[in-house]
Each structure stands twice: as structure tokens, then as C-alpha cells.
């Protein structure tokens, strides 16, 4: 397996972007009509990669218009790096064309598979955390990074099943993946929380054992409780326990660009921006408390 670092990558790119928000068609008119109080937005890549092989149309026109006012990251849901299928080169070429057109600050996808034998399930399905899956995923990720000529960020997914064949924890798998492929991580704090409840592990153990220098971005979203399972629905306000975990994460890792995602049961734009504001307040507070703690520690040492 090739372990080459793709050319023209910037690696971790900690632009001072603080808190951004996911761009969804539901909010197009607000984003186009009034400047959102956020320095960056994240677009779902597949929504702008054309239709039936043809590039163009309203979505890409909107995205290009917004590019003038915002930094934009591209977040994919269909690269399916964990699938045993070959990489979809047509998909990768369309993504490459989009990155050349939009010049995103970074590009991400998920630690998952989304289909098998070219049939798409349109969901983020979990992998068994085995050496076989690790080598397979790292190999395809390496191919994708070389094709796109950029380092990708890989996001942890929410999961509802785990596999008896797993040989390591998810955070050990992610850590090993960064070492093998040179990829960055997109840490979805809500997904960690959801999986921790569904599989009964400590979410902080997961987060605190991730490699500090590999985290590119944080995601926050809401979830729904369904009996004894928690489902990652992105259709609710962010849960208080997730906010707490987020604050602890920023205190531990320092400043990291953070994104609010909402995909259903959309609140008003004003309410969405209030959630962005809350994230910013927690972000500032976490960093401020960190500085105080460092100062106090220094004082004690003196």
C-alpha cells in the first residue's frame, strides 16, 4: 500500500473560522439575502456535483454566489471508502471538478461504507474495527487523496450496531488511520455521544484518546431518543450533554473550527443563528477558562 502524502496538500489548516453552519437548500434565500453571522459554511458535496453527469443548475450557482462571502468546506456522504467495491472514479472526478470550482478550505467524508456491489444504501454504515478493514480503508483513502491531490478529513459516524469481530476500539481505529494515511479527523461530538449511549462506552475516553494534531474540525448536531437507542437525526436542537462534551473538547484540544448541522425539522434562520451564537459563547468560554487555568498553574509553579 502506498503511503505517499499527496502533492499540493496543506495538511491541517487551522483557519480562524470559529463557528460555522451547514448550508442546506431550506436556508438558501436567507444565506443569499442576508449575511449570516458566521465566517464559514459547509456544503454537502453531492448536492453540487451535478445531475445525471451534467454540471450546472441552481445549486452550484447558489454555492458560487455564496463563495464570494464565505469560506466553504465540502462535506461528502457517498465516497464510501469503507465499501469493498472499487473506488468510484466518476464520483471522484466530479468531486475534483467541484473542488477546483469552489476552492474549499477543506474536504471531508465519513468512516463508513454506503453501498455494496454498486448499489447505494444512502446511509453511513459502520465498519468492524479490524486490521482487514483498517488496511482496506487506508488503501482506498490513500487512492482518493492522491486522486484529489489533497488531504481529506474523516468523520466518525453514529452507529447502532457493533461487530463481534472488532479487534480494536473506534478511536484506536481512527488513530491508526491517521498514521497510515496522513488523513485528518473531523470529530463529530454528537456522533461520539450517540454511539457511546448505544454501545455503552465513555464518550470522553473516545475523544481524549484521539491524536491531538490530526483534528481539523468539529461537528455538532441534535439527536432523537428511540426507546433504548439514540438516533442521529439532525432534527433537534443540540442536547445539553453534547454541549458539555463540546466545551470539554475545546478546553482539551484548543481552538477548532466548529460546525452546526441541521438536516430536518428546520428551525427559523434566527433560531439556527442563536445556536451558532451559543456554540461561539461556549467556544470562547472554554478557551478563556483554559487561559485562566494555564495562568493559575504558572503562578503556582512560580
Amino acid at each position, binding site marked *: 500500500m502506498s503511503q505517499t502524502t499527496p502533492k499540493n496538500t496543506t495538511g491541517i489548516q487551522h483557519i480562524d473560522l470559529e463557528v460555522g453552519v451547514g448550508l442546506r437548500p431550506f436556508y438558501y434565500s436567507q444565506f443569499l439575502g442576508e449575511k449570516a453571522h458566521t465566517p464559514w459554511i459547509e456544503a454537502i458535496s453531492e448536492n453540487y456535483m451535478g445531475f*445525471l453527469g451534467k454540471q450546472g*443548475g441552481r445549486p452550484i450557482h447558489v454555492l458560487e454566489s455564496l463563495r464570494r462571502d464565505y469560506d466553504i468546506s465540502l462535506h461528502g456522504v457517498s465516497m464510501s471508502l469503507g465499501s469493498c467495491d472499487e473506488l468510484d472514479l466518476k464520483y471522484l472526478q466530479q468531486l475534483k471538478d467541484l473542488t477546483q470550482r469552489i476552492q474549499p478550505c477543506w474536504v471531508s467524508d465519513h468512516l463508513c461504507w454506503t453501498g*455494496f456491489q454498486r448499489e447505494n444504501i444512502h446511509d453511513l454504515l459502520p465498519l468492524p474495527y479490524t486490521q482487514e478493514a483498517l488496511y482496506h480503508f487506508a488503501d482506498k483513502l490513500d487512492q482518493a487523496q492522491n486522486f484529489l491531490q489533497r488531504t481529506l478529513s474523516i468523520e466518525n459516524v453514529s452507529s447502532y*450496531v457493533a461487530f463481534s469481530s472488532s479487534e480494536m476500539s473506534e478511536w484506536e481505529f481512527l488513530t491508526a488511520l491517521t498514521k497510515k494515511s496522513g488523513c485528518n479527523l473531523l470529530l463529530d461530538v454528537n456522533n461520539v455521544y450517540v454511539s457511546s449511549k448505544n454501545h455503552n462506552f465513555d464518550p470522553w475516553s473516545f475523544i481524549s484518546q484521539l491524536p491531538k494534531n490530526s483534528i481539523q474540525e468539529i461537528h455538532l448536531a441534535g439527536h432523537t431518543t428511540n426507546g433504548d437507542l439514540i438516533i442521529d437525526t439532525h432534527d433537534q436542537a443540540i442536547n445539553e450533554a453534547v454541549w458539555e462534551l463540546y466545551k470539554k473538547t475545546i478546553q482539551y484540544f484548543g481552538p477548532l473550527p466548529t460546525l452546526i448541522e441541521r438536516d430536518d425539522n428546520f428551525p427559523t434562520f434566527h433560531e439556527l443563528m442563536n445556536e451558532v451564537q451559543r456554540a461561539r459563547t461556549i467556544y470562547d468560554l472554554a478557551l478563556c477558562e483554559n487561559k485562566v487555568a494555564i495562568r493559575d498553574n504558572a503562578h503556582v509553579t512560580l
Partner: protein
Amino acid sequence: MSLSKIQDWMSWAIKDPRGIAHALENTPAPRPLKSEPDRMLETISGVTEEEKIKRLSVYADAYFIRISGSMKSDFPLLLKFLGDENFDHMLAHYLVAHPSKTPNIGEIGIHLSKFLNSNTIFEDKAYLSDLALFEFKKIETFYSTLPSTEKHNSLSKLGPEDISTSRIVLNNSINFLSSPYNLLHEPITLSEEINYFYHLRLNTSDIRSLCFSAHEHTLIQNMHHKMTIQELLDGDTVSIDTPLNVEEFFQRLILEEVIWDIIP
């Protein structure tokens, strides 16, 4: 258990429209599975079989709900005429016949018109196939690109003298279909004598659809050849028998942004 076997089994079980529990009962499923389904369940962590099925069902439910939600949003007229329950029933059959092979969830409906045409579930509603095609063309139009040139400011002031010498720039997002059904009016009726021609296009704010006669449709198709308006009218042999109010027709096309620009 190899990664490939796990993925083969999971995708097979998740896509079975009867649900995970039925899929695992070893009864004939939409796609044959090489491995033993009940043995494969051992690969999922959990104490009881019931718990494992419940956890897998989250994915099976999400698979159908996500695609159903997307399709209902993309085919609102079809949903209206079928009703929620019938739509889901039809979709379950459709996904077995045409599983998604695209990363873009919006493209899943590409075979829907043909599927409805060849399927006997809704024989009493023969117009559904054309309705599905109409709505899919609408999605295609949404992803079309408007002409790169800005619209000419004087377009609305087009006078009779311009008609004789100017060339037409059509809105290049136009998609069209023909149908014997009057799809834009309820109840949908079948015409034994004529075909309706539907032109869908983007305008500056929305997707619009217009219905034209065969004569008007031919004229618009001829506009693609970028002839002068005069040449267009000279070649219009139908108007000899059925006079067309030229000015009214062109003003309508301009107003509706079917004609995007006139180049003097």
C-alpha cells in the same frame, strides 16, 4: 467473517422491503445471498437475537424512509394522486426492481416512469407514468444552466420591426415531453385526438411549465436553429391553415422566459 461477506449480508438484509426479521427467515428475498443469513447474525454484537434485529432495523427503516422522503419531495404530484400508502407500496416494488446505483439520491427516480408504464399495480391510472416523467424532467430542469448572457433590457419592448430581422436566443434550460394527458389540470384527462407538449424551464426565480399545441411546439423547436424570426415564420406552413397571432405568441414566450434574448 470477511468485510466483503459482512457488507454483502448487511446490504441484502437492509434492502429487503419486508424488514430484517422476515429477510432472516430464509424465505425468498429480493436478491439471493450466498451465505447463511441466520449464521451471519452472529457477527453483530448483542445479547439476544431480538436486540440484534432491532439494531439492524434502524438501518433498514432509515434506508426506506430516507429514499421515500426524497422521492415524495421530488414527485409531489405523483404522491398526491397515489396517496401516501400507495406511494410507499409502489416505491418498495420500485426499489427491488431498480435499486439505487447513484451517489445522488435525487437520481433514484430515473426509471420510475418506465416502471409505472410496465407495472400493472395501478392499471386504472395510466397517466401516472407520464406524470412521473413530467416530474423527473422538472428535476433535470432544476439542474440546468441558464444562458450565460444577461437578459436584454429592451426585450419587453420588442416591436413588429424587430420580429422581421432579429434572431432568438432560447432559454437553454428547456426540457420538454409530450403526452396525450392534460397533466396540468385536475382531473387528469386523456385526449384521443391531440398530444399536449409540455415545456419546462428555469426562469430567474423558479421552474415553470407551459403547455403548447403541436404547432407552437414545432415553432419553438425550430427556434433552436437560431434562424431569424422572419425565416421562422416563412417556414411555418401550418399557419397558412391555422393563423397564429404572432405578436401574442412571441410576447407570451418572452414574458415566460422561454425566449431569453433577441439579438438584433
